[in-house]
């Protein structure tokens, strides 16, 4: 079973190489990408079942024992994130293939899209199974370099502009992370996460704080936590719909995952929890205020993404097992819902020719399917019962109430208000784009559009294109997954709770990496 662990990274990387070799055979290339990601999705679910019923899987690469070699660690949190990201990557890939087929591949140059997409997947998976801080850095770099290619796909002027902002900000966060690794190594003499966890506790308090803040800054930029989130709404919306969807769903969550690991394994002491909670509050509030001001659906969704990162920070900042468990459940829910909404925005763009709600109208009549595919995840994101968004928020609020400090209660209040405010831009989009008759779009006078202005540099083109079955199918599948998370919320929440419990107290993680039982050791030595 342990031999499956490196396969989740190896398969996408080998697939990327194959896809690049066959860049002139589009059909073969698509087949390779789909098969590889489907295989990884199956593998990840097998790993999840295995890890949940058995022990944490630890692979020592090359047979070198733990503190010297590179460890790959799959515990419940890793396996859960692996499974959900593999499913999301597969669905978005099908959407992209549908869009490529319908457009004759003018918008997504097929020869580089598929290899870059697989490399991105490999980077995400590497980050999730890294048991070594430097390996985590390498995972981040793999996914970032692939994302640079994807965000500037086609090389049009707006994409180059947005891509440059994105790349420079990402580079800065990577350099911060690398400098933090150097300083951690200088002070502890190891980069193995389990060994770091043992040794950091012996460092002087000021050194600990410095290292902790540097790591959080590096991950905070990637996760788009409030003061470090400015880059996200500027760079995501210009990319093609499938790229934005996968970025919004996964890339920020890799940052959130790294923050969860930092807070639970590396620095379990509660010294920065108050700061994290305040940052969570600001992220929620400023994100949603930004979303309300936007006329463009993709930009509005980017701001709601930032806003909801605040909920995950809330769970992590509480520092309790219940808080971390709720944050994990909310992360899984949010990956699915945010990706689905961006895919739905892609469908709206094709059907209505634009993503500005000032110029959209009559979509419900024109395409009821798109209406349903937008409406369900929108309600879910807003946290309407009985959807998983409601359950995740309920878990977070219960965890916060259990802590019971005045700050925790302030956050409960803010989370409820932000949840209501989230409904406003989503419902406004529904009213204007779907319910408003097409004939009323010109000269439309209303209080809700008085302050909404379009992007002054938008080209204003409103070419509508037909929807392909694959695109609608992929989005429908994602909506089904989000409904599935709602239906299976009980077992999934129990799983998140077990994952959160695993992370409470570092002993379990440390002992499973550093003192593996002889059986796993022997298996690990023979790759």
């Amino acid at each position, binding site marked *: 079973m342990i031999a499956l662990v490196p396969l989740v990274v190896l398969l996408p990387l080998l697939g990327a190489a194959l896809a690049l070799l066959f860049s002139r055979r589009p059909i073969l290339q698509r087949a390779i990408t789909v098969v590889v990601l489907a295989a990884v999705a199956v593998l990840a679910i097998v790993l999840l079942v295995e890890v949940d019923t058995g022990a944490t899987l630890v692979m020592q690469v090359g047979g070198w024992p733990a503190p010297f070699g590179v460890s790959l660690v799959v515990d419940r949190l890793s396996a859960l994130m692996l499974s959900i990201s593999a499913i999301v990557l597969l669905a978005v890939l099908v959407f992209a293939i549908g869009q490529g087929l319908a457009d004759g591949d003018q918008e997504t140059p097929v020869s580089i899209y598929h290899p870059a997409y697989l490399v991105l997947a490999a980077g995400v998976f590497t980050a999730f199974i890294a048991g070594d801080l430097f390996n985590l850095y390498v995972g981040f770099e793999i996914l970032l370099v692939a994302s640079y290619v994807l965000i500037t796909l086609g090389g049009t002027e707006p994409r180059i502009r947005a891509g440059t902002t994105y790349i420079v900000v990402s580079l800065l966060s990577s350099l911060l992370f690398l400098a933090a*690794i150097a300083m951690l190594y200088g002070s502890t003499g190891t980069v193995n996460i389990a060994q770091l966890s043992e040794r950091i506790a012996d460092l002087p308090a000021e050194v600990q704080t410095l290292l902790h803040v540097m790591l959080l800054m590096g991950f905070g930029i990637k996760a788009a936590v409030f003061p470090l989130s400015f880059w996200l709404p500027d760079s995501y919306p210009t990319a093609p719909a499938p790229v934005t969807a996968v970025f919004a769903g996964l890339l920020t969550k890799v940052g959130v995952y790294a923050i969860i690991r930092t807070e639970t394994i590396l620095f379990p002491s509660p010294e920065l929890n108050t700061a994290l909670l305040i940052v969570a509050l600001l992220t929620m509030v400023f994100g949603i205020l930004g979303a309300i001001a936007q006329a463009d659906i993709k930009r509005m969704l980017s701001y709601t993404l930032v806003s909801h990162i605040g909920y995950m920070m809330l769970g992590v900042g509480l520092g309790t097992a219940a808080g971390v468990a709720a944050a994990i459940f909310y992360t899984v829910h949010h990956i699915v819902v945010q990706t689905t909404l961006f895919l739905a925005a892609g469908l709206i763009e094709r059907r209505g020719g634009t993503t500005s709600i000032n110029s959209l109208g009559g979509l419900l009549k024109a395409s009821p399917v798109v209406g349903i595919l937008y409406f369900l995840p929108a309600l879910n994101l807003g946290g309407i019962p009985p959807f998983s968004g409601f359950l995740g928020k309920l878990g977070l609020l219960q965890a916060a109430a259990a802590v019971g400090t005045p700050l925790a209660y302030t956050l409960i209040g803010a989370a409820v208000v932000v949840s209501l405010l989230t409904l406003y831009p989503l419902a406004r989009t529904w009213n204007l784009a779907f319910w408003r008759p097409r004939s009323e779009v010109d000269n439309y006078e209303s209080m809700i559009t008085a302050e909404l202005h379009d992007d002054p540099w938008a080209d204003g083109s409103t070419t509508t294109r037909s929807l392909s079955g694959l695109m609608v199918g992929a989005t429908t599948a994602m909506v089904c997954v989000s409904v599935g998370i709602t239906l299976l919320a009980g077992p999934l929440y129990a799983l998140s709770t077990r994952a959160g419990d695993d992370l409470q107290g570092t002993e379990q993680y440390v002992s499973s990496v550093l003192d593996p039982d002889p059986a796993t050791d022997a298996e690990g030595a023979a790759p």
Partner: protein
Amino acid sequence: MTVSLGLLIPMAVLYACGVYLLLEKSITRVILGFLLIGNATNILLLITAGRPGSAPITDGSSDEPYSDPLPQALILTAIVITFAVSAFLMALVYRSWKLAREDALEPDAEDLAVARRAGASAEVPEGAYRDTDFETEDDPLEPSAAADDDEAAEAGSGTRG
């Protein structure tokens, strides 16, 4: 841990210069800044290897101390990553230059619109772009000048290359 001043001072200087260049509006300078900070971080990694001067690695038969090989391995990885990313960034700058004839990073259109709506001045101060001009002293913000610029660039592109 002994830290060599000979490494510490270059590291500090590289970081300082790198941060200064990263804050520039010209993308070329941002790349240079990124390269400097990347190298400064590599030196930081090298410093963590401890005292210089010991043997690179020994077979373990003598008690002689040898230097820690791990930071060197980390630096090698970091250099490869920095190299790949700077190559990509340079391609990006070239593309940006071909498209816009401008090395500066444009402010986000939506941000400008929001600033304008709020009544705040979104105008870029006079001469803000001047330090990035390549061939002309025309202010690229002036629409007419920019248009002339484009024509001149178009006309010149044949001879240039």
